[in-house]
C-alpha cells in the first residue's frame, strides 16, 4: 500500500497533480449533491425527521448494552449464531475461522465499510480463500488492486475510460460498445456464475433490529441478495453502534440515510435478514452468523466521541466537503475518508499517525449542516486539533510559529509595529489592486490572489481620527 508510506501532504500533492482524478470526483459528488438537494425539496419534514433520527440514535447509544443483549437473545432464538469481537483482528479471525470451518474455497462479499475497517479483504486473501467482490464498485476496486475512495461510491476515483480499459483486459466476455450500460452488462456476465457457486457469503449491516434479531442491508444492484442467498453459510459483520429498537425505527432512519446518500427516497432493495433458512424455505443459507464488532467504539463512548456513534455512513459529509472534493478519498489514508473519516481515523490509527487529517478542514461547517443525524463534525475535528497540541504532536515549525505569534499578539505595541511594516511590504507587490505573487507565498499565490491591503493599518487610521476630533 503506497498511500500508507507517504505523508498526508505528499499524498495530497499527488492527488492534486492527477489530471483525471478531479474530473472523476466532480462527476460523482456533483451528481450526489444535486440529487440530495432535490430530495430535500420533496421532503419538507426532513428537519423534523433529522431531529428524530438523532434522538433515536442517542437513545440507542444511551442504552447500548441493553439493546445488544436484546438483539443477541432474539438473533439466537431465530437460529443465528452471534460472535463478539473486541478488535479488527479478532473480527477478521472469527470470519476467516468460520470460512475455514465451512471448507470455503470461494467467498462472495457484499460491500461493507465495516469489512474494510477490520481489514477483511486482506485477511481472506492471506488465508488463501478466493474473494469475489460483488458490488460493482468493489469489483472495480478489486480489479484495479487499489482501495475504496468513498464509502458509498468506492470506485469514484475511476473515470469511465479507466473502467472500460480494465474490464476489457480482465473480463471473460467484455463489452464491445463504449457505453456505461455495456460496461455494467459486462460485469453482470462476469459475476453471474460466481454468485451461485460460492461456499460462504459475507455482508455488513446498515441496521441491527433489537426486537427481532434481524439485520438490514440496503443496496441498489441486488447483489446483496444474490450473494447471501445461495451459499450454505452467510456471515454478517456489524459495528455495535448499528442497533435500532425495532423495524419502525429502522424505517425512520432509512428515510434519512438514503436521501442523504444518493437523493433517492429508498434504495431499490431493502432487505431484512433473520436467521438461517427456515423449514420449507425454497432457498437461503443453512448457517447464519453475526459478528458484533467493537474496534474502538466503546473507547469513543469513553473518550468524548459519543456523537460520532450516531453516524449512519451516508457519505453526505464528504460529498459536500470542499477539501474532499479537491483530493478524493485515498489521500485520507484510512478506511473512512472525508470529514467523518478525519474524525474516525485518528481513533483507529492513532492521532500521531493521522494528525494531519483534522487539520485538512476549512471549518466551513457544511458537513454538520448536511449530516442526517446532526453530528457536530467541526467540533469533533477541533477536539482532535486541541488534543494534538496538548500531546505535543504538532511539528516544531508549527509550535515555533504559533509561539512567535502568541508573543507578538500579546504585546500590542509590537503587534502594531509588525502589522504597519507588513502592510507596507505587501503593497510593494500591488498589481492593480491585487497581490498576485510574493516571495515566500508561492504555494498560496500559485492558485489564488488576494486584494492588496490598505495603505495604512486600521489602528493607524483610527488613531488619526481620534486626534482629529
Amino acid at each position, binding site marked *: 500500500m503506497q498511500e500508507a508510506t507517504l505523508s498526508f501532504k505528499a499524498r495530497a500533492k499527488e492527488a492534486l497533480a492527477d489530471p483525471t482524478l478531479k474530473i472523476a470526483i466532480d462527476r460523482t459528488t456533483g451528481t450526489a449533491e444535486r440529487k440530495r438537494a432535490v430530495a430535500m425539496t420533496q421532503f419538507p419534514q426532513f428537519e423534523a425527521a433529522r431531529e428524530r433520527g438523532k434522538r433515536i440514535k442517542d437513545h440507542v447509544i444511551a442504552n447500548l448494552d441493553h439493546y*445488544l443483549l436484546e438483539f443477541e437473545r432474539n438473533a439466537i432464538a431465530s437460529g443465528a449464531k452471534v460472535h463478539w469481537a473486541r478488535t479488527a483482528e479478532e473480527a477478521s479471525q472469527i470470519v476467516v475461522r468460520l470460512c475455514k470451518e465451512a471448507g470455503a474455497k470461494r467467498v462472495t462479499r457484499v460491500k461493507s465499510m465495516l469489512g474494510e475497517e477490520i481489514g477483511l479483504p486482506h485477511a481472506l486473501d492471506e488465508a488463501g480463500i478466493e474473494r469475489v467482490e460483488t458490488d460493482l464498485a468493489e469489483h472495480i476496486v478489486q480489479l484495479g488492486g487499489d482501495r475504496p475512495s468513498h464509502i458509498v461510491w468506492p470506485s469514484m476515483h475511476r473515470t469511465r475510460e479507466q473502467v472500460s480499459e480494465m474490464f476489457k483486459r480482465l473480463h471473460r466476455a467484455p463489452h464491445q460498445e463504449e457505453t456505461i450500460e455495456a460496461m455494467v452488462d459486462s460485469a453482470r456476465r462476469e459475476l453471474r*456464475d460466481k454468485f451461485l457457486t460460492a461456499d460462504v457469503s459475507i455482508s455488513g449491516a446498515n441496521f441491527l433490529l433489537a426486537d427481532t434479531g434481524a439485520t438490514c442491508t440496503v443496496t441498489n444492484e441486488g447483489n446483496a441478495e*444474490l450473494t447471501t442467498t445461495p451459499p450454505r453459510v452467510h456471515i454478517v459483520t456489524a459495528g455495535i453502534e448499528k442497533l435500532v429498537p425495532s423495524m419502525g425505527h429502522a424505517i425512520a432512519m432509512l428515510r434519512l440515510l438514503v436521501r442523504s446518500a444518493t437523493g433517492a427516497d429508498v434504495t431499490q432493495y431493502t432487505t431484512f435478514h433473520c436467521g438461517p433458512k427456515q423449514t420449507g424455505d425454497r432457498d437461503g443459507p443453512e448457517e447464519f452468523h453475526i459478528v458484533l464488532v467493537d474496534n474502538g467504539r*466503546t473507547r469513543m463512548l469513553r473518550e468524548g466521541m459519543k456523537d460520532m456513534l450516531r453516524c449512519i455512513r451516508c457519505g453526505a459529509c464528504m460529498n459536500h466537503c470542499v477539501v474532499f472534493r479537491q483530493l478524493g478519498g485515498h489521500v485520507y489514508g484510512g478506511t473512512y475518508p472525508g470529514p467523518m473519516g478525519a474524525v474516525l481515523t485518528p481513533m483507529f490509527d492513532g492521532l500521531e499517525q493521522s494528525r494531519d487529517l483534522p487539520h485538512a478542514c476549512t471549518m466551513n461547517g457544511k458537513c454538520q449542516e448536511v449530516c442526517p443525524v446532526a453530528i457536530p463534525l467541526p467540533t469533533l475535528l477541533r477536539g482532535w486539533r486541541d488534543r494534538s497540541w496538548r500531546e505535543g504532536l504538532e511539528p516544531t515549525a508549527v509550535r515555533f510559529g504559533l509561539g512567535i505569534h502568541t508573543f507578538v499578539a500579546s504585546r500590542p505595541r509590537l503587534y502594531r509595529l509588525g502589522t504597519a511594516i507588513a502592510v507596507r511590504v505587501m503593497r510593494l507587490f500591488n498589481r492593480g489592486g491585487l497581490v498576485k505573487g510574493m516571495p515566500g507565498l508561492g504555494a498560496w499565490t500559485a492558485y489564488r490572489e488576494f486584494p492588496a491591503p490598505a495603505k495604512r493599518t486600521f489602528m493607524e487610521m483610527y488613531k488619526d481620527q481620534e486626534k482629529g476630533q
Partner: protein
Amino acid sequence: MSARDTILNAIRGGLGNTEIHPMAVRREADALLQGLPSIRPPLLEDGLVDAFIARVTSPKVAATAERIASASELPAAVGRYLEARGLPAVVALQPAAPLQDLDWSGFELHDEVAPDETIAIGVARWGIAETGSLVFHSGADTPILANFLPLHHLVMVRADTILPFLDDYAAATAGQRPPRNVNIVTGASGTTDIEGSLVLGAHGPRFLHVVIVGTPDSSE
C-alpha cells in the same frame, strides 16, 4: 474475560454504570415513533392505488405499472407485455397458489428460476404507496432468488394489500415471527457506480412491471 463481557463492561463503564430499566427504555423507544406524519414525506396522490402507481412510475423508481380488474386477467396482461417486447412466452412462475391457479394456456411455464432467466412472474404480499415498493417474504412459495435473477420481473400485487407508508408494513407484521428474508423492492436493479450515472439491470432485473389487481375494497 470473554470478548462479549469485555465489550459489555466497556459500554457500561462508558455510560457511567447507570442502571437501565427495561420498561422505561421501551416507553422511550415507543415515544420516538410518535407523530409519524410530522417526520415522513407526503404521499403523491390522495387515493392509495393512485399514490402507489404515481411512485412506481416516477422517474426515481422508473418501473412500469398497469391495473387489471381481477387476477384471472393476469395471463393476458403478461401476454401483452411479452408481445410488445418481442419476448417468447417462456416464463418462470413463482410457485404461489394465486399465480399457479390461473389459466396459463399458451405459456411454457417452469418454477425453478435459471441464472440467466429472461422473465419471471411473482406476487408481492404488500405494496407501499410512500415509496412505490413491493414487499416479499421468503417461504415455501417464495424463492428469494426469483426476485433477483430474471431480466424482466413482472409482479402482481392486490390493490387491497397496498399500504400507505413503510411504517404500516412494520405495524402489520409486528409481533409475528419474521421470515428469513423480507425484501422491499423498489424499481429495477440499478447502479451509479461508474461516474454516478444511473444504469439499470446491474445484477438484478433490468425491467420491473407491476400489475395491480382489483380495488382497495375488493376481495379479489
